[in-house]
């Protein structure tokens, strides 16, 4: 009798459990798991539009001989390796400043620095495009303060267009990361800093020897998120430079887009390029997972 009741409750419990999660599971299978599997299958094919044939690892071989892919991969890495550390460092410093006791206008500073995060990627990209115009406001300002004699060709020079995009991304995402650090800093026991102060530890030492080690998990989390975001960079290069000049700001995502929707579509090869991003993202996720496990 008692056993029957128990079974009855278990079944009731289980049926309800699956019922509540079923809609979400269905959608994720349909719109994430199926596509990611299908994309792997596609990557073994090649052809124009819907006429495709099985090529096995042919697409992977093509990757090695495709100069545009190499450029896109290189550009994506440049953005990643330069932009992510700069942004995280800036975010850590702003968070440290905003976390200092008896700071005046804290609310104003925090809101101002965070505000870029609410703009749409397209809107802010366009703003940056207009600010970095050849005779635009940025060049006028630099000229006015005497940093430059000649206008910098921000959007028409391979080097400077990358700088412009890095500046833009840093503007948009620094405040976002800062909020994570600020929240984590507020969880640090204040007495640690007080003790350090009594010991005569300078603020700089505090930052490098106390704050950064304690924030390590959050820094890792935001680095992984930012890196995965940058691996997929699309909106900014698309709207600021359209990948130019001469593909110098073409990213992997843009190349995938071009291969599938701009040129004569080759979905199979585009899927292969997209798996390059998948593999990097998976590696990063693994790092994050390993680290989280070590901690617990």
């Amino acid at each position, binding site marked *: 009798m008692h056993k029957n009741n128990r079974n009855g409750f278990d079944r009731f419990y289980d049926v309800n459990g699956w019922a509540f999660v079923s809609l*979400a599971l269905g959608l994720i299978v349909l719109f994430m798991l199926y596509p990611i599997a299908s994309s792997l299958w596609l990557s073994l094919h090649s052809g124009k539009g819907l006429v495709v044939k099985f090529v096995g690892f042919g697409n992977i071989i093509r990757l090695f001989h495709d100069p545009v892919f190499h450029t896109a991969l290189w550009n994506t890495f440049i953005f990643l390796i330069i932009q992510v550390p700069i942004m995280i460092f800036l975010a850590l410093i702003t968070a440290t400043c905003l976390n200092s006791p008896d700071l005046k206008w804290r609310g104003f500073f925090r809101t101002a620095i965070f505000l870029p995060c609410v703009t*749409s990627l397209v809107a802010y990209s366009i703003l940056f495009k207009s600010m970095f115009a050849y005779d635009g406001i940025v060049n006028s300002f630099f000229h006015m303060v005497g940093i430059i004699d000649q206008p910098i060709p921000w959007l028409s020079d391979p080097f400077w267009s990358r700088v412009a995009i890095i500046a833009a991304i840093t503007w948009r995402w620094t405040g976002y990361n800062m909020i994570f650090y600020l929240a984590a800093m507020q969880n640090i026991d204040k007495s640690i800093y007080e003790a350090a102060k009594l010991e005569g530890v300078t603020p700089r030492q505090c930052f490098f020897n106390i704050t950064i080690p304690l924030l390590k998990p959050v820094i890792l989390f935001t680095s992984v998120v930012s890196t995965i975001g940058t691996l997929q960079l699309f909106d900014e290069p698309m709207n600021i430079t359209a990948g130019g000049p001469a593909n110098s700001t073409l990213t992997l995502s843009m190349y995938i887009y071009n291969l599938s929707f701009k040129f004569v579509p080759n979905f199979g090869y585009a899927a292969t390029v997209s798996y390059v991003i998948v593999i990097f993202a998976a590696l990063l996720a693994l790092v994050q997972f390993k680290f989280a496990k070590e901690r617990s």
Partner: protein
Amino acid sequence: MTQSLQPPRLRLQQFLMYGFLLLSALLSLFPFLWMVISSTNTTADINQGKFTIGSALLENIHKFATLVDLPLVFWNTAKIALLATGLTLLIASLAGYGFEVFRSRLRERVYQLLLLTMMIPFAALMIPLFTMMAKAGLLNTHWAVILPAIASVYIIFYFRQCTKAFPRELLDAARVDGVSEWKIFLFVYFPVMRSTYAAAFIITFMANWNNFLWPLIVLQSTEMKTINLVLSSLASAYFPDFGVVMVGTILATLPTVIVFFAMQKQFVQGMLGSVK
């Protein structure tokens, strides 16, 4: 001795700190100011870096209105963002509640798998999704934008994390009273978790309002386009009319800025939900 040395050094630190914060705040706000000021200038002035209020605002608005069917574009954008957000919240909260309240070993495994899918880059999904939408005859419809957006693992995760704080006594009391599980969800859980819903609403709404790549792929005809697509195509002209584009960027930015200021606390809460 050291005591008397401290104050000037402290003052220098304070000076550097305020200087740095002020500079950061200025740099953060400058593009907003640039956007507002430029909307009053002609494109020629904007390209010359003019940073004073001009007299071309009405002309820019007028040109924008003749180029773009603004009510329609706004309606498209709002419809997609609101429908996608509403459905995401409904489905993700059901799932977050289900995973947390009805725990079982198998569902825990499934949940772990779900978390892994968070790392899947969208670039790897878009081609199969595009073919799927083409086969389903949904290309160039708003549903093609909305449907893939609803499957948000992040929001499921967020709801599950927040459900951990949901008082179990309420659940038990309702069960003893014989209230069905669905009614408990609707009439007990939902009202108690309103602030969680508010936070999830904001981040989901912003993400959908700001979405660009996927709509760019599936929405082809002008009358279906969202504000971001319209802006992007206006600005990608060989000689973009920036004065007109500025009016558009203001209109695209305003809703999210308003939502942000109205619900700043919930916004930050929702963002941080993942690291708590």
